[in-house]
């Protein structure tokens, strides 16, 4: 969108207050930079304190260095599972939120039941039920003579993990989406209706584009939480970060070393993703900048 500003009168006259404005802006920039530096300094101090605290532990750095590479390879699984799960969870959450806000009693019933059951039970138990329980249902189909349908219920460890994480986080994110959609003032609905938009059009062209901006920071937040919760899929034998760290810890009883290494890698992962999320957030806020 082009911005039209009033041109100054006369031939190329400069604003007399321009130099003062520029000086003020420079001061403000300096103050901002100082503030950032101070925060960074506090971080450095805290990292040093943490380092000293960890140095009090009986810590075998050599062991960590030797096995760092192998544990790091698990990060690909952690990232892959989290990305796939946040993708499906976002779709589920959008559908769930639209269902919750709809006037259709069936849609509302389904989505409130979904949120209630998947938000109200532990993720670990959901993983076990999907991995162990679904095949037992499928077995009934196979016994009845429909092995193709029975096979559909037998998910491998990756599919089970992604399904469980998607369903669980989709339930949490349904509430985030609902709140985001409801944060758009009702006047917008009325305005859209006034120019003859259907409810689908209103959602697609008016409400959702604005709601997304509110929702993005929360999705980022959920994504960070999910990267750490993906550790739970290690129970099915996926060789991700936690699995590798844990199994190596047991080889030579180096629990503190390997647990701290895994924690550090998760921390780095989440720092990267919160930085990316910040960039995305700034991009989405473009229209609201001043």
């Amino acid at each position, binding site marked *: 969108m082009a911005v039209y500003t009033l041109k100054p009168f006369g031939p190329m006259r400069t604003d007399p207050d321009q130099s003062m404005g520029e000086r003020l802006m420079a001061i403000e920039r300096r103050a901002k930079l100082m503030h950032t530096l101070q925060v960074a300094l506090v971080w450095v101090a805290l990292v040093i304190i943490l380092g000293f605290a960890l140095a009090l532990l009986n810590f075998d750095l050599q062991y960590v260095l030797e096995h760092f590479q192998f544990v790091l390879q698990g990060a690909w699984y952690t990232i892959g599972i989290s990305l796939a799960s946040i993708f499906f969870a976002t779709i589920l959450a959008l559908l769930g939120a639209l269902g919750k806000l709809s006037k259709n009693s069936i849609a509302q019933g389904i989505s409130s039941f979904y949120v209630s059951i998947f938000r109200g039970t532990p993720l670990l138990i959901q993983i076990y039920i999907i991995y162990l329980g679904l095949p*037992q249902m499928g077995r009934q189909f196979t016994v009845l003579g429909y092995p193709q349908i029975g096979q*559909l219920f037998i998910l491998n460890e990756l599919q089970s993990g992604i399904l469980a994480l998607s369903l669980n986080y989709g339930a949490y994110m349904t509430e985030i989406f609902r709140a985001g959609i409801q944060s758009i003032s009702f006047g917008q609905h009325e305005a859209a209706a006034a120019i003859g938009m259907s409810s689908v059009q209103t959602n697609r062209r008016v409400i959702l584009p604005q709601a997304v901006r509110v929702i993005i920071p929360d999705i980022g937040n959920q994504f960070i939480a999910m990267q750490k919760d993906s550790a739970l899929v*290690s*129970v099915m034998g996926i*060789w991700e970060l936690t699995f590798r760290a844990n199994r190596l810890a047991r080889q030579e009883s180096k*629990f503190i070393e390997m647990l701290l290494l895994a924690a550090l890698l998760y921390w780095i992962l989440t720092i990267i993703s919160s930085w990316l999320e910040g960039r995305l957030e700034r991009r989405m806020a473009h229209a609201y900048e001043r």
Partner: protein
Amino acid sequence: MRKTTLVFTVLVITSLILSACGGLGAPAQAADKLQEVKNRGVLLVSTDPAYPPQSELVENATRASNTKCASDQRTGDELRGFDIDASKEIAKRLGVEACFVTPSWDLITAGGWADRWDISVGSMTVTPERMEKLLFTQPYYTTPAAFFVHQDNTTFTQPSDLSGKTIGACTGCTYDFYLAGTLQIPGEEMNYVVQNPNFKGYETDLNALQDLALGDGTRLDAVLTAQPTGAGSIADGMPLKQLGEPVYFEYLAAALDKASIKTSIPLAQEVSKIIQAMHEDGTLLKLSEQYYGLDLTSAAGDFDLSQLKQW
């Protein structure tokens, strides 16, 4: 909206047709699990590489280029240990390759494996409860269960001194049942020498040993675990010592799923024959001495499998 519905319907129908075709293309149906394994050329073994020296992972191992293992399965080179070597030998004598999957112990003992893997060669103790879900083969070795206490302790001289004390062990394993006084091991008379212990459950034995190593009585007075596990921790430098003689012996066998779509009984019988042969020609004894430095296998060869009345 109508277009979306149409696309969705087409997708569903296509996927149904595709899945039906997949069924038709399958090779000749095997009559049982043994035949299925031989047709496939692969014995799928489950093992949790959390229990050295029985099973542990190998870092940065390269997969053999001619392996038949699927990409989400582990080849024999990516794991090592007593259980792994025993699995490889069993597969070799079946004329197939051993491939491994690594679900957690809970998922293995739960049964209902949905044919994701064929057999567990995971040092599983034969118990009546597990026999409800699983078939057991001839045991391939035994594990003596022993109490361990902190090195600094001088008040305990024998296992019966631990009555009423805080004792740690893995939750849901045989040590848990022994401390609760409910353990039944087919073919063995139980003698519960410790009365009314204050049981503290752990995810695995090693977590319990870690807590015991914090100090005498700090969190635990003693841990009941496998003698080789405790001895291994002591060798790794934990300040612990064994208390008295082992209190009982467990028979450890390979296990198969009772709920598999095709019956696992012929495979269980075949593997039992192979394990018996491995006892007789000294293969297992050699492995036991290699990994544990002692003979843990001979008693397992004398175990009378027919008393379990599984088939």
